[in-house]
């Protein structure tokens, strides 16, 4: 058996060439398929982030002086759909739109981000940062109203 494996007499030049072509074609096809899929993913994902343009149009603090949700209205004025997946309030990640935990806004559409109940102090600036699936950020500082006000 060892002798058979070591023997190269049976491997003809034709067979070698066919094998070589097969390996090269297969290898290049795999590399090209990976490249095409990588570029496609890039175009759908991070590559389109430049066209993601959205802004906070209104912030509603509900239940100031106690605990309540914050409703943030978001407007998508960009060229692609936006999927908000993260919200940070004063640097802390806050859950929103439970149970899905995300907000999809079509082009030219509006959407609401409703947080879980958080402690809301009156006359305090809150710093909001919205993060999308593609990594775009929209942020702004809004002051909560005086106690008893909406």
């Amino acid at each position, binding site marked *: 058996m060892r002798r058979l494996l070591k023997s190269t007499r049976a491997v003809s030049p034709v067979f070698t060439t066919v094998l070589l072509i097969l390996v090269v074609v297969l290898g290049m096809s795999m590399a090209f398929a990976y490249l095409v899929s990588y570029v496609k993913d890039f175009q759908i994902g991070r*590559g*389109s982030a430049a*066209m993601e*343009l959205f*802004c906070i149009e209104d912030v509603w603090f509900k239940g100031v002086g106690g605990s309540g949700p914050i409703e943030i209205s978001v*407007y998508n*004025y960009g*060229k692609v759909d936006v999927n908000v997946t993260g919200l940070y309030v004063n640097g802390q990640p806050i859950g929103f739109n439970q149970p899905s935990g995300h907000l999809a806004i079509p082009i030219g559409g509006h959407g609401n981000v409703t947080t879980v109940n958080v402690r809301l102090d009156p006359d305090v600036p809150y710093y909001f940062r919205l993060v999308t699936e593609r990594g775009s950020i929209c942020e702004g500082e809004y002051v909560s*109203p005086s106690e008893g006000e909406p």
Partner: protein
Amino acid sequence: MRQKGKLRLTRNRRGTAEIVGTVLFLVILLFFFANVFLWNNQVNSEAEQVKWRKMNSPVRIEVADAGSPFVFEVTNLGGVDTALSRLWIVNSTDTGNEKDHVYADLEPLNVWVAAGSTRRLTLDSETILNEDGSVNATLSNSEITIHYAPPPGQTVIFKILTKLGNTAACSQEFP
């Protein structure tokens, strides 16, 4: 002798396949990466165009007539025309009402504010809400009427949003 060598070189076909293969491979690669580059260029160009339009269409909202009917004006301070998206009406005085934050949807009315010009918005004496809870707004003879009766003795903030994402606000205390 030299002529003979040149003739032999041109007639020699050894290695032609490799050269043709390499050139084809380079052409395919170039075509593929040129496509990606052009797409990226187009994306950035479109985004820059939107940002440029936004930067050149800031708006201002101010009270024009605090009497009855209450009128306020939206002025386009930039050099690019802009369309109005929403008018947010926020009652900043505590009423305990769920309708403290409402908006009038201006997009169906297709209200444009030309560069440097002003549009007047008039408040109605009666509040009419749409099915989705937004304030009803109508357009008649270029006159925009917002069917929202401001609550007496309370301060209301009016915030305008354009389709390019610009905002402006003003507030008014109603006697």
